[in-house]
């Protein structure tokens, strides 16, 4: 067995289980006496519920119960809470309308849950839910930001005037105004960030169970953060103490953010299992996922950059309208504010920035974090704007970027939008990407494509993002209603094996491998003897879960701290055994030794002594070798990099395909290069999806048009090129591993690179900007408009 510590491309431990079909997912869980829940959802975007007749459904075969919003209210079930409060420009809090578990009074989006039927079989539950007789009074709907802001628009919530959730700002308006007044040139770009539907491979599912003997409720759920679900559901919805509520998130088949939030179905099955004293299971069908999983993105923005005569960025003014959907999902308010506007400096030294963000309620599915969450929107806006500046000023797009980069010697660097970048080297990632992409050889490739009748373009993005979320005090001051530390418990067993209990959650990221590598490296324990446990509130002390590329930067750091404590305690035991002073004990590669002597004890020997303390400093030290650490990060981490895309367009059909993609990212120290490569490639695949293929469409009445994979285009293998991944490393300066995070960079850096490439390919058609997704018809329209009709043939 070769080296398996930090930096080794160790094969993923968990894959044997996943690839052999032995994974254990929520829908694989079946409990004795289990019932099935089927949710009746609104089939219309906005309507008053005049009445629900449950009699016929209740009398159907196998039906055990039918519940509506009124039943939950009568039992004092609370609404779904929002975990972040954003304030308006004037300091008043955002509008935070109630989000009932089952609709009360009216429904606000297609998919809004109205009632639940619980029966002995899945089919019986479905039959009953379908038979519920609901009398509706349809209301006019606001299916888009534009509709919701129109004069006289329908109100999604009767007590939220103008459908405005908040009107927020960040930055120095006066400084920006002054810079604009003095600017040699102002370049403006209007753009949208298309709405996406996450589509994790595993649909959401939940199983509620109640133990009558102990009074304990258990929820098995497809979650990225079981402790957060326990906290939110226990404290706000079902009013259960932690001691009586266990939440288990077993193997989870992809999340991308959509499984962070506390969803109605989790509360429904937990509550109903208690009421009925029988397990209750719900599993989403894919069609339900489309209308009940939180969507992502959906911004309409205007960006203006003030420039001096040389193209130096002087000031940036951004106005964004962000779609919240019909209700506030768990973290929705912070996505278009603190995870978006704070990133608008990008990798540039723009001295003044002012951002205004209005969040808008619409009659659509709630919108929340989706892979990248706010940062893709910022990177897209900025990197498109920079390309448009290059086009409008005639300055080369690489030169323009280099000219405005924050220099490598300027760190730590305070941006005008509240962040302090700790480290980075943007010239280095740019240089490496240009080289890997053979940037200078592009004209020849364009000419060759032209001979084949194809239009070829090249695009670049130099992005930054913030992850390793997040310092609790900082986010608390910004409106977070929770701390964002992470927790690790490291248990060295008597025979020297190690179990690590982490509050982070793996749903595809490969934590069981990466974390085991860290532990193996730090404690000198063989990789195979390290077990990583996650996803169960009964096993793990606490945790905030996995999102925002935080698992390694925050969860890994907690593990390092816990291991420091293990080593410190081990040294005291070793000092006792070897009759030396603690200060003289050194620990390296799994061995405690006395400095300057040949005396040593292995970690295994120390562990055995800790659990069999016959010869032990029992008066000053407790037996056992197990430590817990809570790690609160000192700052965000700032992965950054350069992505280069090349596209070819078939001018006859308008179809664009990405023919080459290079990503060079600075993700800090790399623990497992193979996993980093996979994470980046997966992110880029989703970025290609956003740029070329995906886009949720609602019609003017608030009906979803892209309600299934027949209409919503998920990227497939044949839509993707071979994605070349490289890394250029500067270490994070404030966490013990020097890591920054790699889960989201692919989805953040790639969309602007691809759109820039398509715009470049269409240079002869005088295109300044095209909104995503760059579907064939859209490109064909541009080509057709740019040529006489016959010439287009």
């Amino acid at each position, binding site marked *: 067995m070769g080296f398996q510590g930090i930096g080794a491309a160790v094969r993923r431990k968990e894959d044997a289980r996943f690839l052999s079909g032995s994974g254990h997912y929520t829908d694989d869980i079946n409990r004795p006496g289990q019932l099935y829940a089927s949710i009746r959802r609104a089939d219309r975007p906005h309507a008053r519920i005049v009445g629900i007749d449950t009699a016929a459904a209740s009398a159907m075969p196998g039906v055990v119960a039918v519940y509506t919003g009124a039943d939950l209210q009568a039992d004092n079930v609370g609404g779904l809470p929002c975990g972040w409060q954003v304030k308006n420009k004037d300091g008043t809090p955002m509008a935070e309308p109630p989000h009932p578990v089952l609709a009360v009074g009216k429904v606000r989006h297609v998919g809004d849950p109205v009632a639940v039927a619980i029966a002995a079989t899945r089919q019986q539950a479905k039959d009953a839910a*379908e038979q519920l007789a609901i009398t509706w009074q349809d209301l006019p709907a606001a299916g888009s930001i534009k509709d919701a802001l129109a004069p006289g628009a329908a109100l999604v919530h009767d007590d939220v005037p103008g459908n405005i959730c908040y009107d927020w700002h960040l930055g120095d308006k006066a400084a920006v105004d002054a810079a604009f007044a003095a600017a040699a040139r102002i370049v403006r770009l209007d753009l949208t960030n298309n709405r996406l539907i996450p589509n994790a491979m595993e649909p959401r599912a939940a199983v509620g169970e109640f133990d009558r003997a102990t009074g304990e409720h258990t929820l098995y759920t497809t979650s990225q953060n079981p402790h957060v679900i326990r906290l939110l559901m226990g404290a706000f919805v079902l009013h259960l103490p932690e001691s009586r509520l266990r939440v288990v998130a077993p193997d989870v088949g992809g999340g991308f953010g959509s499984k962070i939030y506390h969803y109605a179905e989790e509360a429904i099955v937990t509550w109903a299992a208690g009421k009925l004293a029988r397990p209750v299971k719900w599993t989403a069908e894919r069609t339900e996922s489309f209308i009940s999983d939180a969507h992502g993105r959906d911004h309409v923005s205007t960006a203006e950059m003030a420039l001096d005569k040389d193209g130096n960025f002087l000031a940036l003014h951004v106005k964004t309208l962000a779609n919240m959907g019909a209700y506030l999902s768990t973290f929705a308010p912070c996505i278009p504010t603190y995870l978006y506007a704070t990133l608008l400096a990008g990798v540039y030294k723009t001295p003044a920035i002012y951002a205004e963000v209005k969040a808008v309620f619409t009659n659509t599915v709630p919108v929340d974090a989706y892979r990248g969450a706010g940062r893709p929107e910022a990177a897209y806006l900025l990197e498109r704007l920079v390309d448009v500046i290059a086009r409008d000023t005639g300055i080369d797009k690489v030169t323009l970027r280099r000219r405005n980069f924050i220099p490598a010697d300027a760190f730590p660097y305070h941006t005008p939008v509240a962040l302090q970048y700790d480290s980075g080297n943007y010239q280095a990632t740019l240089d490496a990407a240009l080289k890997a992409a053979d940037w200078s050889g592009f004209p020849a490739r364009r000419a060759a494509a032209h001979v084949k009748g194809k239009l070829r373009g090249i695009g670049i993005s130099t992005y930054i993002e913030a992850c390793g979320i997040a310092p609790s005090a900082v986010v608390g001051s910004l409106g977070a209603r929770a701390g964002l530390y992470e927790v690790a418990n490291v248990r060295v067993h008597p025979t020297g094996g190690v179990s690590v209990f982490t509050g982070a959650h793996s749903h595809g990221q490969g934590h069981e491998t990466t974390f085991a590598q860290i532990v193996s490296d730090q404690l000198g324990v063989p990789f195979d003897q390290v077990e990583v446990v996650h996803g169960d509130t009964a096993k793990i002390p606490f945790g905030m879960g996995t999102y925002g590329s935080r698992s390694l930067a925050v969860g890994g750091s907690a593990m390092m701290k816990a291991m420091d404590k293990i080593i410190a305690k081990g040294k005291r035991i070793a000092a006792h055994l070897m009759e030396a002073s603690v200060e003289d004990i050194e620990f390296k590669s799994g061995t405690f030794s006395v400095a300057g002597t040949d005396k040593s004890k292995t970690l295994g020997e120390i562990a055995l002594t800790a659990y069999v303390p016959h010869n032990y400093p029992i008066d000053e030290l407790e037996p056992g070798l197990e430590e817990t650490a809570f790690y609160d990060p000192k700052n965000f981490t700032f992965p950054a990099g350069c992505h280069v895309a090349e596209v070819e367009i078939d001018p006859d059909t308008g179809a664009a395909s990405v023919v080459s993609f290079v990503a060079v990212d600075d993700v800090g120290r790399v623990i497992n290069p193979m996993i980093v490569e996979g994470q980046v490639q997966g992110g880029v695949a989703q970025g290609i999806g956003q740029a070329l*293929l995906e886009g949720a469409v609602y019609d003017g009445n608030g009906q979803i048009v892209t309600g299934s*994979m027949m209409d919503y285009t998920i990227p497939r293998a044949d839509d993707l090129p071979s994605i070349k991944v490289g890394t250029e490393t500067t270490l994070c300066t404030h966490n013990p591993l020097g890591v920054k995070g790699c889960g989201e960079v692919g989805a953040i850096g790639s969309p602007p690179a691809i759109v820039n490439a398509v715009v470049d390919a269409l240079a002869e058609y005088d295109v300044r900007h095209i909104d995503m997704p760059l*579907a064939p*018809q859209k490109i064909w*329209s541009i080509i057709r408009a740019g040529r006489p009709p016959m010439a287009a043939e």
Partner: protein
Amino acid sequence: MYDFTYQKPSSVADAAKLLSADAEAKALAGGMTLIPVLKQRLNKPSTLVDLAGTGLAGISVAGGKVRIGAMTTHAAVAGSAEVRKAIPALATLAGGIGDKEVRHRGTIGGSLANNDPTADYSAAALALGAAIVTNKRTIAADDYFQGMFTTALEPGELITAVEFPVPEKAAYTKFPNPASRYAIVGVFVAQGPSRGPSGVRVAVTGASESGVFRHKAMEAALAKSFSAAALADIATSAEGLNSDIHASAEYRAHLIGVMARRAVAAAG
């Protein structure tokens, strides 16, 4: 899925009897359309009559015709050396339907009986002048397709085989819907076996509100000169064409021209 009765007869006659006896019964071929529809509860048949036991699968080539049994899967057609040799365009078309899983379940008879306006086989049947053989008669392709999801099949009538005359040359080109991969526009062109004005046939699928259709203007132009250039001046009206989020009627009209020219070029 609603409850239904499942029957698996061992002969076409028995299958036809079951279907004739019950207007709410439905025939199940590969199920690649019907089963998703049932899962979404969009259809509520009393009985599913599974044709898998009726012995309708198989391919033979004789007398200038390729005969394909109704229950032959797309994968079997795509992988058949005989089909590949006789009508390579047909094998290529079958290999481009859906995905691998669909191609191993879906059947030619099921596809033609369903007559989805965006399906591929209908274009081949119409352009090659195929004969749809049923348990009661033989229907010329020109008479068979009667609008979207509508065919000349009568209650209790089952397709047993499809006979394709072997053309001199043929090709199929498809511009797929990026999401569903069904045809936004698919054009099948064929020349022969007979020569003269009726010897060239161009069938277009995916584009029209009324399903697969023959493009007579293109046929006339190609009969004079079977070349992509011959189609340069043939415009297609957008009137009556489908329009959705992926393709407007105008875009489809344009794509018909592009796909037709590419098909002609590919046919050689």
